[in-house]
């Protein structure tokens, strides 16, 4: 069947079985590399994307559920030339080893920071609880998210800063 999806602000028509997990459509039909296959079981977070601003595991989300919603992948956060705040923070703090888990981490972080621009350490850790990293990059990932929070607040101006204070 044909399903209409809005990915990173652009609408796409996709020909696929309604049960197809969103992840496969993103990676194959739309050639987006950001979301990764890690387990296909909802256990590792490598496939995390935002659906209507909420961190969602795309490996266990059928495309039929994504229809009519806003899907954001790491490609929607910026580019290597013009990285968004979360990407800029991960680059600045060199928060990657193999990097395979990182887009999923960034999408969980983006989801958190959009709803809570100045999260506490515990809130950050809770938001990442599903995301696994085997390289042990955790300390840098946490630091990058704290940095991304700063960068986002700086760009949001005084209102968001008040919340942080």
């Amino acid at each position, binding site marked *: 069947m044909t399903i209409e999806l809005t990915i990173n602000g652009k609408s796409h028509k996709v020909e696929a079985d309604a049960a*197809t997990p969103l992840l496969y459509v993103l990676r194959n039909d739309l050639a987006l590399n950001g979301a990764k296959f890690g387990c296909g079981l909802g256990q590792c977070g490598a496939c995390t994307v935002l659906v209507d601003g909420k961190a969602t595991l795309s490996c266990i989300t059928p495309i039929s559920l994504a229809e009519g919603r806003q899907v954001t992948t790491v490609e929607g956060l910026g580019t290597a030339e013009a990285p968004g705040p979360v990407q800029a923070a991960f680059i600045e703090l*060199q928060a990657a*080893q193999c990097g*395979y888990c990182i887009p999923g981490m960034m999408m969980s972080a983006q989801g958190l920071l959009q709803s809570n621009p100045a999260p506490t350490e515990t809130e950050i850790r809770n938001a990442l609880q599903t995301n696994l990293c085997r*390289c*042990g*990059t955790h*300390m840098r990932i946490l630091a990058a998210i704290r940095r991304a929070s700063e960068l986002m607040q700086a760009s949001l101006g005084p209102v968001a800063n008040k919340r942080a204070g």
Partner: protein
Amino acid sequence: MNAPLTGALTRRGLLAGAGGLLVSFSLLPHAFAQSAAPAQPHLPGSLETSRSLDAWIRIDPNGHITIFTGKAELGQGVRTALLQVAAEELDVPPGELEIITADTARTPNEGYTAGSQSAQYSGTALRHAAAQVRQLLIGEAARRLELDPGVLKTEGKAVRAPDGRSLGYGELVSDQFLRVEAKPVSILKKPDSYRYIGHSLPRVDIPGKVTGGEVYVHDMRLEGMLHARVVRPAIPRARLLSVDSSSVEAMPGVVAVIRDGDFLAVVAQGEFQAVTAMHALAGLARWERRYALPDQAALPAYLQKNESTVGTVSASGDPDKAAGKVFEATYTRPYQLHGSIGPSCGVAVLKDGQLTVWSHTQGVYPDRAAIAEMLGMPPNKVRVIHREGAGCYGHNGADDAAADAALIASKLPGRPIRLLWMRDQEHAGEPFGAPMLMKIRATLGDDGRIAGWNYDLWSNDHNTRPGGARSLLAAQAKENPFPPPVPKLAITPNGNGDRNANPLYDLPNKRVLWHYVEDMPLRISALRGLGAYANVVAIESSIDELALMANADPVEFRLRHLSDPRARDVVELAAKRFGWSNEKLPPHRGRGFAFAKYKNLAAYLAIAAEVEIERETGRVRLVRAVSAIDTGEAINPDGIINQTEGGILQATSWTLYEAVTFDENEVTSTDWSSYPILRFSSVPDKVEVHVINRPGLPFLGTAEAAQGPTGAALANAVRHATGRRIYDLPLSRQRVKQAIGI
């Protein structure tokens, strides 16, 4: 902190050279060993095996410079480090160099990217090649400009004369200019003039990785590419009794069901179609086990019973005659996973008799030989190209997935095949880290020093990398199968199961034996550090117990037995930065210390850890860790910190949580809930890594240095917090509760 220069002089002869540091590698000890065969001089690093400069560096007439390495990026940042080294000696910014990594059609054969040896071998080769290329360019410019080479400088990809004339690198090269054999001696930059070495340059691969770039083999999309999945149960080497695949062949998108002996796979147009068909096919296949697996709970006894031969790792004096108080203990380690976050993947296409395979293998050349052998093809008809995968931490399923893809592609000529393992296939099918049993009997003399040391370890070979087709799952399963390898005991300087079994401490009377186990019920292969992890845990746990017996501080007790000044430096630095003391900690907290010199010939690492125990649940959390590492000359200090932090956190996960589980039929830990690893709720508050840089000394390699010391520091901290020693890994909640009697 700098090393005393005498260290450098004894390590590799240094001669002051004109305008630089003249390093004579002909003074290396093993060069003497080779002097019986006078034909070829010993060359630095991997130049020894790929001797022509143009194997490493190419300069195009337009000035474009490409450097080649046989090593692969595994997430350890090797691209960046190698670029820095080449850039330094070529006098060209790293951003202006292109780097080509592991590809059998293009790069030198450097075997495996393993053992923390990339900087040591490839880095050293590139460094010398670059330095010699720069000298050749200067020499050629001097000839053309009719000037003395000594007055010429290099900058901006050009050789410049004091009179303002200059010649670009591209102008200076002609066809065969760099087709010359490298020399044993190079004029290297002096550490005080470094522009790139020793600087924390940002990694070149990170921007692509955080923006959805096409980075991994998983991301490849070739024209006409099909998606394939294997059907492989969690039963090792299972025999396929029967499968009626006709219904699967009729499923939407399915192109082929492939059966070759016990090898079963499905190929489809779409990826989800392949997954759906794989599930259907799995439901139709009937398998039989070839043998029963041993009782998991009795694994240590199994190892001991299956000892086939014994090798002496180290022996001196007479440990049995030593007088004093005796300490005895037995330690164990279970099977553990590499557990890559991305399952193994391979892409292959057979076109006009030429097979091309893209793989995240650690060794493109050995993998090519193995795949060619499996398919009965001449190796020159097979090309293996490295593409990154998720971190592998040793020999995981990468080579197997490449072979799976190759076998499938060989049956569908002209069609590119992308083969990806599923999570359960990765968990059950990768070659595991080997289980071990370690027994120690040590004697503490009246003088408070260790008077006798007996150490016995039982373990398989830790390495079943493709030496040929027999290491590949697909080759073991296909018709006319290749039987799995049966490695033989070998005692080598790098070590294997016995890696780091010989403590670096001054022990006049010791005997270290490897009781070698040939039988291998579950497939194993190289996992980060091989035997070093468990050996260091056993040794350093015992050192702590001996310190207690001696009424000594664990750090002071270690220093008492350490005469290597670089070892002492890391121990003292880690203790100092941690704030090591004997002060009482709050209840349920403990501190632990550990040290090792990786392989006894690579990086020195010491670490202090503080843990917190939740009494009711037995949960251990690493609160903070402080480590010091000396990895010789630091190419990229932040890269060393990044990898070491990673090693500390990964080893924390191994030590606190991880064990492969199985029953008599099959592996039962087949996902992340049956094989839990570190999650963010348990990540420490703080991890510090202090790098001791030794400019001018050889690169020692970083990647695996933290594994053993971290495990040991945790074990010692748990001992300190609970008053009880846990001898079996992992230090699970259940074991902690048992130890404290809850």
